[in-house]
Each structure stands twice: as C-alpha cells, then as structure tokens.
C-alpha cells in the first residue's frame, strides 16, 4: 500500500500543495496583517514552483529507485510513459506559473488560481499513468473541473461566458465518454485496460476478437473518441476552442492549449494503442476513424485560421490544426522495428515539441498584448521595433509551428509523417503536408505585421523578468531540439515502449 502511494507521490505532492496554497492564503493575513482579499500574494507563486520542483524530484527518485510497476491493483501504472508525461506536465505548469505570475498578482482570486492550476496538473499526472477506466474518468474530471473554473477566474463577461460554454460542452463530452466506457465495461466485464497475462482486461477481451462484439466495440470506440476529441479540440468537437481561448485569461489559454491536449492524447494512446490494440481485429477501424478526424481537423483548423483577426482565436484554430497533426500519429498503427508503435512515439515526440513551441507563442502574446491592451493582429504592427526580442521569439515559434528548420516543429512533423507513411496512410500525409503549406500563410502574416508594418504607437515594451525567463526557456528548447532532436526522440521512443 505504501509503495503504491509512493508511486503516485508526485501527484500527491501537487495536490497537497494545492490545499496548502489555499491555506496559506487564509493564514497569511492573520500572520502578516492586512485583509484577506487584498494584498499582493506574489510570493505564493514561489511556493507553487517549489511544490512543482518537489514533485519533479520525487518523480526522478522513483525512476532512480527502480519503482516502475503497476500500482493499486493494476489501475495505475508507473512506467516510462507515465514518467515522461509527468515531467512534461510539471514543466508545463512551471512555465505557466513563471509566465503568469504577474498577471495573477492583479487578480482577485490569486490563491485559488494557483490551487486550481495545481489540481489540474495533478489530474493530468494521474491521467498519464491511469490504466483503468474509472481512474481515467476521475482524473479527467479532476482536470476538467479545475480548468472550467480557471477559464472563468477573471469574472468578467467574456470569461464567464467562456467558462459556461466550456462547462456545458465539457459536461456533455464527459457524459459521452462515460457512455463509451460503459459499453466497454459491458463487453469486457472489467474496467481494467490492460493487465498481466491471465487476468481479465479490456485488452485481453478485445484480443480474443469475438466478432459478435465488433459492432459494440466500434460504438464504444466512436464514443470514446468523441469524448476525448472534445478535450483535445479535434473536429467536429472543436467549436469551444477559439471562444475559450479568447475569453479566458491568456495564461489559462496557454495552459489549456498544451496541458489538456497532452493529457488527452496521452490517454488516447493508453486507451487505443494499449487497450484496443493496434493489431486487434478492430485496429484498422479505429485507425481509420482517427485518420478521418485528423484530416478534417487539419483542414478546418487551417482554413478558418486564415480569416482570423484576433491573436487568441488564431492560436485557437492553429491549435485545432495541430491537434489534427497529432491525430495522424494516433491513426498510425504500424509497429516500428523496435517493437513500439511508431505512431505513439510520433505523438509523444510531437507533444513534447508542441509544448515548448505553443507555450512560447502564448507567452510572447502575453508579453505584447498585455502591454498594448489589444489582441488584434493588426495592433501587432511594428512590434519588431518595439519589442525586438519578443517579436523574434514569436516569429521563431510560428516558424516552428509551420514546420520549417531549424526548429523542433520541423523534426516533429517529419517524424509523425514518417509514422503515417509506415502505416500506409499516404493520403493522410499528403493532406497533412499540404495543410502545413497553407498554415504558413497565417503564421507568416503575423510575422509580416510585426516586421514590415509601421508601429501605430511608440514606446518600447518591457516584460517582467519571470515572463522573460519562461519565454527564453521555451525558445531555447525549440532551438535545441531543432538542432539536436535525437535525445528527445529517444526519450519519446523509450516512453512508448512501456505501452503494451
């Protein structure tokens, strides 16, 4: 029992920290004086970072102490996949904390913001290792509900509208998801996704390949895919993305765009590549499902992005298109020579690079827009003169999102398209590459405004040191992976060898 708790230790640290942050906020005025709802609680951010660091250290010791094994009767599994995503989520959270510290100081609900962020992160960390439908649902709801509130934390009209939309659509998608899970439970008789040989699990039931269950299984697959497609923002469940990115506070949108996407795809890999199985009798069915979803998402996301005038909505539609790119990897079911799924390693590698790239773009937007008070793309005119380094960072991240060298995005696309080719999805890869070419237009359009147009106003833009650190970290990450991608590719491949 203790060992199992040890295995989910990092998530527990984060959860406890969430509670402690709230507690500190209540205790602080008693100790330091001042009213509860007033005052700059900027120091809370450091506590949050400390907690995240602590969780990371714990996760590292788990690996060093060789603790990787199933836990809690096999519902949770600490393996290379879990560890990879644990570090990824902790990194995302830390970067978002750094970038948003200044914005949060001006909020009314500072401690609540950090607490919700930590809770969402802990939910994601549990999601990465969850191997049981119930645990998946619980962790998913933990993450989602925290995010619903985070979206509305600004408490103005736009945020409240966005939060309400998110709650309603999220609740429906959770219901659909649950329905799919019920189907699976009905067919398999257990909620365990995978288990050691001899023990009943969903994977073992599907591997038996009873043709009578085929229709029900496909139904379950569709429902599950639908539920998760909402979470990651794939067509046709993408309508919430631009509205929420526009309404929520920008750091929250940044967190959503990479965090919930990474968590959603991690679970998709667990459920489909592990549970349903790439070479099971319905392998090609769900693969085709995701291929179709990917193709449509990329196209819809890119085409609508062409017409956007608001930076946040542009990033939202770009997010949908990039989710489509990642879905290509989910659809790629062929195995590689190393025995792991090429598509899964592609998804994992792409997610890691996407985290850096997209966070970089969002942080640059935070830096610029919060200064000029506008998110309109045309107000970014002349930014290259007013904020040369930030503009360069944004341009670089956009070049990475397009997939041009020497950025991480270039290798991510090559890897995932290669996975698609190996899985005989040549048509899908052609759609994907042409979409990349189309996306260049709207990414370069922003770059053009920044570098070619005259600035409507004068004055240099200063950004806070913490935001600068966060932005620099992401850009350096994109560049380093762009030049030497091998170490991240190896890490991703090692992570997915854990997927049965």
């Amino acid at each position, binding site marked *: 029992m203790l060992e199992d708790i040890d295995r989910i230790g990092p998530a527990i640290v984060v959860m406890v920290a969430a509670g402690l942050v709230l507690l500190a906020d209540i205790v602080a005025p008693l100790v330091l004086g001042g009213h509860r709802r007033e005052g700059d609680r900027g120091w809370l951010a450091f506590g949050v970072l400390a907690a995240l660091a602590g969780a990371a250290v714990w996760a590292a010791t788990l690996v060093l102490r060789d603790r990787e094994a199933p836990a809690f009767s096999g519902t949770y599994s600490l393996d290379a996949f879990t560890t990879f995503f644990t570090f990824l989520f902790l990194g995302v959270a830390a970067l978002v904390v750094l970038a948003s510290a200044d914005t949060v100081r001006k909020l009314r609900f500072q401690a609540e913001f950090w607490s919700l962020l930590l809770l969402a992160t802990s939910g994601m960390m549990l999601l990465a290792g969850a191997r049981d439908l119930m645990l998946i649902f619980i962790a998913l709801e933990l993450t989602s509900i925290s995010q619903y509130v985070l979206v509305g934390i600004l408490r103005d009209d736009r945020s409240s509208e966005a939060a309400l939309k998110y709650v309603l659509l999220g609740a429906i998608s959770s219901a659909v998801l649950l329905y799919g899970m019920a189907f699976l439970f009905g067919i398999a008789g257990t909620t365990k996704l995978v288990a050691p040989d001899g023990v009943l699990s969903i994977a073992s039931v599907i591997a038996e390949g009873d043709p009578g269950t085929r229709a029900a299984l496909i139904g379950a697959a569709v429902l599950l895919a639908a539920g998760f497609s909402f979470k990651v923002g794939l067509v046709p469940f993408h309508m919430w993305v631009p509205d929420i990115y526009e309404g929520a506070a920008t750091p929250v949108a940044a967190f959503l765009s990479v965090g919930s996407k990474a968590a959603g795809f991690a679970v998709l890999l667990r459920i489909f590549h592990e549970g349903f199985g790439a070479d099971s009798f319905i392998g090609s069915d769900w693969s085709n499902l995701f291929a179709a979803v990917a193709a449509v998402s990329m196209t819809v996301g890119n085409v609508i992005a062409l017409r956007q005038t608001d930076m946040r909505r542009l990033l939202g539609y770009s997010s949908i298109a990039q989710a489509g790119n990642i879905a290509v990897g989910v659809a790629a079911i062929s195995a*590689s020579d190393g025995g792991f799924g090429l598509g899964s390693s592609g998804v994992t590698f792409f997610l890691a690079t996407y985290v850096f790239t997209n966070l970089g773009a969002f942080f640059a937007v935070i830096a610029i827009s919060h200064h000029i008070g506008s998110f309109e793309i045309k107000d970014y005119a002349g930014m290259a003169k007013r904020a040369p380094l930030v503009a360069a960072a944004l341009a670089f991240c956009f070049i990475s999102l397009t997939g*041009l060298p020497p950025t991480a995005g270039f290798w991510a696309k*090559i890897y995932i398209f290669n996975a698609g080719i190996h899985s005989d999805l040549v048509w899908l890869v*052609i759609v994907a590459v042409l979409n990349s*070419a189309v996306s*260049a237009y709207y990414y370069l359009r922003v770059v053009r405004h920044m570098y070619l147009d005259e600035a409507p106003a004068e004055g240099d833009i200063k950004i806070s040191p913490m935001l600068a650190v966060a932005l620099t970290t992401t850009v350096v990450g994109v560049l380093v992976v762009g030049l030497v991608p091998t170490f991240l590719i190896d890490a991703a*491949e090692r992570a997915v060898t854990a997927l049965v």
Partner: protein
Amino acid sequence: MLTFLVFLPAFAAIVIFTLPRSEERQAKLMALAVTGVLLVLSLVLFAFFDRGEEGLQFVEKFRWIRAEAAGLDIHYFLGIDGLSLTMVILTTFLFTVAILISWNVDKRPKEYFAWLLLLETGVLGVFTAQDLILFFLFWEVELVPMYFLISVWGSGRKEYSAMKFVLFTLAGSALMLVGFLVLAFSAEPSTFDMQALQEADISNALLPLPAIFFLIFAAFAIKMPIVPLHTWLPDAHTDAPTAVSVILAGVLLKMGGYGMLRILIGIMPDTAQDYAVWLASLAAISIIYGAIVTLRQTDLKRLIAYSSVSHMGYVLLGIAALGHVGMTGATLQMFSHGIITGLLFVMVGMIYDRAHTRDVNELSGLAHVTPIIAVAMILAGLASLGLPTMSGFVAELMVFLGAFERFEVATILGVIGILLSAGYILWMVRRIMFGPKSERWAELPDATSWWEQVPMVAMLAVIIVVGIFPAVLIDVIDQAILPLAGKLV
C-alpha cells in the same frame, strides 16, 4: 571542408545579427569577406577536384538522427561530384556579386546582409547534401530569408510577391517530403542516403513509382519553374531587390534542375525513361510560352524574369533527353544561364538605380549617355540569345544535339525559342540603348564605381571564357553526368 563551406555564411550571419546597428560597414565587410573566402574555396575545390575519378569527393558523412527503429536513419552527408561542384561555383560566384552590388543598401543593411548569408548556407547545403532529409532541410532553410529579403527590401507588391513565393515553394516541398518518405521507406533497410538509394531496390514502394516521381517532381517543377507552375516567378523577380533577383534567377531556380538530375534521374532512372516524353513536352511549352510572353513585357525586370522561364525550359529539355550530351548541356545551361541572367539583372539594377524606371517605353538612347552600362547590357543580351563565343551557345547547342534524337518536335520548338529570344532581346536593347537620345536621361551617371565594374567584368569574363573554351567546365560536369547517363542505357 564542405561543412566549413556550407556553414561559414550562417555563422557570419549570426555574428552580423548581433552586431550593433551602427556597425554597418563592419557587417558589409564581413559579408564580402565571407563570400570572397567561399569563392576562393570553391575554386580551390575546382582545382583539386579529380575529374577522372567517379563518385563523390570531399565527403563528410556521419550518422546524425539515429531513430532507426522509426525508420529514420538520417545521415549528415555532404559530398560533391561534378554536378554539385558546378553549382557550388555558380553559387559562391553569384553571392559575391550580390554582396558587391548591394553595397549601397541603406535600409537596415545589417539584417540584409545577414539574411543573404543565411540564404547562401541554405543553397550551398542543397547542392552538397547527399541525404534526402538533409537536402529537404536545406531546401526549407532558404524560405525564411527569401521571405524577409523580398518583403522588407523589395519594391512594388513586395509583400504579396514574397508570400506567393513562400506558399508556392512550400506546397511543392510539402509534396516532395511525402515522396522522400515513401522512397526511403521502400528501400530495405529504410534509408535516406541518396547514394544508397541509387543502388537499392525500390520496386515495392507504397505508391507506384510514377506517383513518387511526380510528387518529387512537383517541387522541382515549381522551382525551375515549369509552365504552368511558374506564376510566382515574375512577381518575385520583379519585386525583389536587385541582388535578390540575381540570386533567385541565378541560383535558386537551378535548385530545381539540380534536384531533377540528382534525385529523380539518379534514384529513379527507369521511371524517368518512361516519362521523358512528358518532360520534353513540358519543356517545349515552357520555352515557347515563356518566350512569347516575354515579347509582351515592358518592364525590364519582368522581361528578364519571363525569359528565365523560357531558358530554364532548355534545362528541362536537356534533362528529358536522358543522354550524356543532353544532360551535360542542361547542366552547362544551368551554369551559363545563372551567370547571364545574373548579369542582366545586375545591369537592370544599375539602370534602375540611376533612372528610377524600368519601363522600356520610357528609357531610350542610353548608349549615348552610359556607354559602359550599354556595352555590358548588350553583351549580356547577346549571351542570353545564344550568340556563339558565349556560354549560352554551347549549352543550348548541346541541349539540342542531345534532345533531337528522341524528341524532334520539342527540339524544333526549342530552336524556335531561340529565334523568339533573339526577338525580345534585340528589341529591348534597340529600344533602351539605341533609341533617340532623350533629354531626360542626358545626365545619367555611368557605372564607374569599383563595386559595379568588378562584378560586370567578372561575369562577362566567365561567360566568354566558358563560351570559347567550354571544356574547362565540361570536364567537371562529365565526371557526374557520364555515370548518370550510363545508368539510363
């Protein structure tokens, strides 16, 4: 050696980016020094190149991305043979010229030279890379510098032209990537090494070989360009600054022809044989259509841009001939056209700097006022129409000789193209140089500065030397083309 050649400009560019804005002169001198060093280096390579020995020389190869389990065995593999060396010399020479004629750039000069140097790295990388993904990487590297160079320092509808250039090129390279991935996957074991792929058995690929061929061909067809995918070219050439037009016409277009020879014919010679007729037909269409449209142009830059479409048609015709003479002619035409068109753009740039117009209808009688410019321009024009003693003649002759055996009609159309090019060149020269002396241009200064005269003379010298004694280059080209032609028999 080759790594130094390819990456020196990139390092210099990074250094220049970090220089303070006031150090303009340093930036220019550094850029000139770098391109000069590279030119010397490429001539050294030329001198030490073993024309008798087949295969790649000065090879640098080591494993780079080792994700073999994923089928991504990517090598850092640079090497040159005769074909690459010719292109490398062309590139280093034209970039030095480009730096020289940009000496007076006044708008953000530091960044201008930095982007030009980054572009040089990209192009040199394309010509020396022997691994498909490395090739693709360098092919994509040239996009961002070109976008900035055209959209910031260009004229006219520069932003539109720059975006059009990027989108067309990206669409082509997107399809090329798919072709490369399928090609690499079809080999056993999967590899991106171009040399290995030439020997590998690729018959059981995921897509039928012609499909792969045309996916990759798309990128080269857009680059060369081949009618009807050429519509980006007139805009990009006209609206780009002079030096960038020189590089675009002189070097970037050749990336298409080089890719066809190196990749399409090197790796898929049988498919090339099957579809040679199509290539020859497209070539003929490009030649004639390009020439006819050129006749209608009144903007000097647009005129030369369309003439490039026509002249690159000769390259495709030579490639389609799939024989030793034809392909050698195509390569020589790439080199020759690069220098000739480069020179033409240089001259137009000089005229525009002085007269501030490129309209053929407005300029007249310039020979009386600016004799040096006039002589250079007339010589450049004569070279362009293929006058004997100049390199264009040798190249086009070889192309026709090589192509006539298999494609009589296309060759005849090609020769008619020469007629048409004589038409537009002589007409243009007569109008602007020899018309009545106009009051408006009476005070135009001639080309007297060193940084204008040196490139002019150098380019003319190369054109004439190669025209009179082509063996100096053909020896080198043969080293690569002979084995290539041998594969096609």
